[in-house]
């Protein structure tokens, strides 16, 4: 017997000052809306920061994916502080190192390179989600 699959919470950076933060956020949308809509769900970092009970329940004692824009890793720290059992980290600044030709710009409206970076980041996150699905026997 198996219950409904628990969607994996995805928490992106809420950074408002840098393009890499914007790419992290866009990557979360690409992942949760386009690539793995049945397996993932975005949880707002601000809710976790505030200690919102419903948001904490979403992440408590399970696997979670953090997509961070910078080395401060606010999303990963927010998940860890909120009781996630295992935080899988995706760092946009690492992804951009592997795609050196990309020059992301913009915060509210990412340029084309920023969108490409978001897609590459989302692809990395999707691989993690697929691995987790395999471990759960849901592949």
């Amino acid at each position, binding site marked *: 017997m198996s219950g409904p699959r628990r969607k994996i919470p995805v*928490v992106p950076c809420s950074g*408002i000052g840098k393009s890499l933060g914007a790419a992290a956020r866009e990557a979360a949308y690409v992942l949760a809306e386009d690539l793995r809509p049945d397996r993932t769900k975005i949880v707002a970092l601000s809710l976790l*920061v505030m200690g919102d009970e419903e948001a904490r329940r979403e992440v408590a004692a399970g696997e979670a994916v953090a997509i961070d824009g910078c080395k401060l890793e*606010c999303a990963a720290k927010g998940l860890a502080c909120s009781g996630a059992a295992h935080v899988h980290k995706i760092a946009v600044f690492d992804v951009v190192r592997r795609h050196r030709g990309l020059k992301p710009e913009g915060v509210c409206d990412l340029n084309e390179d920023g969108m490409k970076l978001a897609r590459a980041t989302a692809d990395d996150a999707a691989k993690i989600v697929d691995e987790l699905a395999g471990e759960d026997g849901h592949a």
Partner: protein
Amino acid sequence: MPDLPRKKVGLISCSGEELAEGTVTRRAVRKVLETLRPDDTVTLCLPLFLAGGEGERAFARHYPTIAVDGCDKRCAALATEKYSARPAASVVVTEVAKESGCGAIGTARRLDGSGMRLADAVAEKIVEETDRLLKRKSRSAGPASGREKP
């Protein structure tokens, strides 16, 4: 108390990624920062309060802040107060939307035209509060060049 060269207002948006209203907060704050009051405002990153951003916390202790929230959970206002100091002003997108009779605004990923207009209205509210906190006469929410004489 550190040496504070110039009084500025810190803007803290919830940026809630789940809701379109969160996207409105981010867009409104960026508009104020980049276009409307670039010399008078800075943005503070809400998650950094939790992640140990001492610069963020110190700023909010010594400077006035405006919390810009998407919904009545008021994460930005509450988290700022919890980790630093009570915000000097608070703007809530759902309240501005109600006042302006705004309906659907698009999605968190992509605001529609109505969402963009709501972001502009929220930006105007932020400008009003910024000017009030800096004790300036109320001005239209135009670019901050050509500042009024006291």
